């Protein structure tokens, strides 16, 4: 579980931030992975966020616009319908008076009973009338029908009388009048042939008008009311002034048509957006003082949309957070893959180059070794012969100094020979030739060369190979060299009378293990990691070339195996080689045969 978590984390962990492989830089395709990473994240995040933010803001604008125009359209429709209703209400009553005046003569109208009869009929037909009165051209009221006793009043100085006299028709504002009840006066003038006139006047109830208006009110956020042209509220409004008070909003500019405008209302220090629809009410036969106001509170109207937008904002925010997590993660993952595969490639390249260099050195070394071997052989035989002469012919055999010199020459030749053989072995380590090899046989072959030394130094060599140990398929020469090197090493490491153990055993189904252990001087722990490095030697003076174990290591690797070492100072050293019983893949011999 934890392992899997670590593995997953490893995929998106930016391994390239803390690099310890700068030495491989020449082999890397890219070097600045931080920059690639940063740019990648930036590009991905911008590419993902920009369209999202742009689309969201464009979307908001469009919705805002369409919501605004929808509200305006609806307001306009309501205002226009309400205007028609108010106009119709007033026109209807004016026309009723007009009809009455032209149909019924002055005499009948001035008859109080008859007038009361007409009032009753009009009430039945149209409703909303409170009283009727006839006023003579002098301004004196000549007849009255209605609930109040207002006879013999003189209206000659009143505004409505003067206006009606001028324009033939009159519609008053809503006012309280003598009775302290809101009402409207409408009046129609009738001319005599002699140029004189009389006026029929009616008082209208405002209840029906208010009812008509309120029937157009839709929802809690809209209100419809009337004002007069000086801005005095005529039918009560909830938010913009009581009846007969000044309206809190400015008076809209005159227009023949129904208009809608956006306005701001400052209520209790809080600004509120309003949609104001209005229409100047004018009947066909007379102008009226009324302006119809339709006020809608924008905040209330777009509440639903606001809630939707807030939800949408949350969604966008989550989306942005997801992008900010996923994009850097994805980018890290990709750059990681790039980096790791590049690193792998760089390592392979570096190793290949190192191998190439080693192979070149091998070629050179092999050439040198060859050329040196022949003169070396001559020196060997000549010096050997001189020694033979001394010893066999007993001429100088007692001259230890002379014999010593010759032995020095022979030793030196021996060492040179060892070095050239190792150099040739180093050059040859790149080829693999596979054949069946019996471990028992090969071990005893190797030991042949040491029998004499073992006997001489009283070193016991124990070989333990199971009888049924199967033959393995490997490169005989290389395995021989490996064993030879290790046995040589062991012989050099032990004192006289020590023990050498050589054990071979199967290790699993397809591997064998060969352990070569001694109870010699051992090695300190700190040198163990270095012993397979070329030219590393612990042997005193000039006894070792430092190539033996490096070559051995290379050979074991070439055979597809592993070599490990366990050592303790003064207790001994054990080298363990694990080899596959079959080398499945033949290593290509691109190095050529240089041996």
């Amino acid at each position, binding site marked *: 579980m934890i392992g899997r978590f670590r593995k997953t984390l490893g995929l998106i962990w930016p391994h390239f931030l803390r690099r310890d492989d700068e030495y491989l830089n020449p082999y890397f395709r890219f070097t600045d992975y931080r920059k690639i990473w940063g740019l990648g994240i930036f590009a991905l995040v911008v590419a993902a966020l920009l369209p999202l933010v742009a689309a969201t803001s464009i979307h908001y604008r469009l919705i805002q616009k369409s919501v605004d125009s929808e509200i305006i359209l609806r307001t306009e429709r309501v205002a226009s319908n309400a205007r028609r209703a108010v106009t119709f209400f007033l026109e209807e009553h004016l026309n009723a008076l007009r009809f009455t005046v032209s149909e019924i003569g002055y005499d009948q109208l001035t008859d109080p009973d008859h007038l009361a009869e007409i009032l009753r009929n009009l009430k039945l037909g149209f409703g909303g009338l409170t009283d009727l009165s006839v006023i003579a051209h002098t301004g004196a009221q000549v007849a009255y029908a209605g609930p109040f006793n207002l006879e013999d009043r003189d209206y000659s100085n009143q505004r409505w009388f003067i206006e009606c006299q001028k324009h033939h028709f009159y519609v008053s504002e809503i006012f309280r009048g003598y009775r302290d009840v809101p009402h409207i006066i409408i009046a129609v003038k009738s001319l005599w042939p002699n140029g004189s006139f009389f006026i029929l006047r009616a008082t209208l109830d405002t209840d029906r008008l208010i009812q008509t208006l309120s029937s157009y009110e839709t929802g809690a956020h809209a209100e419809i009311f009337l004002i007069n042209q000086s801005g005095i509220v005529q039918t009560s409004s909830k938010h913009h002034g009581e009846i007969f008070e000044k309206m809190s909003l400015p008076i809209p500019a005159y227009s023949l048509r129904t208009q809608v405008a956006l306005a701001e209302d400052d209520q209790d220090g809080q600004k509120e957006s309003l949609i104001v629809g209005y229409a100047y009410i004018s009947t066909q036969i007379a102008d009226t003082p009324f302006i119809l106001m339709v006020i809608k509170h924008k905040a209330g109207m777009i509440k639903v949309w606001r809630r939707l937008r807030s939800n949408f904002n949350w969604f966008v925010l989550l989306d942005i957070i997801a992008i900010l997590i996923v994009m850097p993660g994805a980018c890290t993952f990709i750059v990681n893959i790039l980096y790791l595969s590049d690193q792998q490639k760089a390592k392979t390249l570096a190793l290949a180059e190192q191998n190439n260099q080693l192979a070149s050195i091998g070629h050179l070394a092999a050439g040198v070794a*060859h*050329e040196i*071997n*022949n003169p*070396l*052989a*001559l*020196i*060997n*035989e*000549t010096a*050997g*012969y001189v020694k*033979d002469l001394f010893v*066999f012919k007993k001429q100088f055999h007692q001259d230890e100094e002379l014999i010593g010199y010759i032995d020095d020459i*022979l030793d030196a*030749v*021996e060492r*040179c*020979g060892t070095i*050239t*053989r190792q150099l*040739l072995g180093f050059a*040859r380590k790149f*080829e693999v*030739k596979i054949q069946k090899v019996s471990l028992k046989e090969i071990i005893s072959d190797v030991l042949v060369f040491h029998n*004499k030394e073992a006997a001489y130094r009283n070193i016991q060599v124990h070989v333990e190979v199971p009888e049924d140990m199967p033959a393995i398929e490997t490169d005989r*020469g290389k395995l021989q060299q490996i064993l030879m090197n290790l046995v040589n090493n062991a012989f050099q490491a032990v004192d006289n009378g020590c023990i050498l153990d050589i054990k071979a055993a199967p290790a699993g189904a397809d591997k064998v293990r060969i352990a070569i252990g001694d109870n010699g001087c051992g090695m300190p722990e700190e040198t163990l990691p270095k012993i397979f490095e070329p030219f590393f030697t612990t042997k005193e003076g000039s006894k070792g070339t430092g190539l033996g174990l490096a070559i051995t290591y290379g050979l074991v690797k070439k055979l597809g195996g592993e070599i490990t070492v366990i050592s303790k100072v003064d207790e001994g050293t054990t080298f363990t080689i694990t080899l596959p019983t079959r080398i499945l893949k033949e290593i290509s011999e691109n190095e050529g*045969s*240089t*041996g």
Partner: protein
Amino acid sequence: MKQYHLLIVDDEKRFADMLAKRLSLRGCHCDVCYNGQQALDLIRQKDFFLILLDLHLPDIYGTEVLKRIKAISAQTPVVILTGHGTAEDRRACMQQGAYAFWHKPLGIEQLMVILARVREESA
């Protein structure tokens, strides 16, 4: 002590002579040839206990000489002693029945060990 008859085939005259002398001191009788043809002629005439053969001979290459020696006298052990042997040479020689393959310089003691082994095996 029985005289062992050896043949040394090597184009390095001084080396061959010197080795012959040293082996003589150790109780071996040695013939020396400096080229392949000479050696083959000699082998047709005499039986040798062991033949030491170089590869780089002026007339015939060592592996070919070995092949012909084996054709003449298959049971005679041939030890290859060369300064220039490649892995290919080694493989070819071992396939054609060389007794051993050694690089120069070879200590006289090691040579004596080989002789002793041959002696044991032939006894």
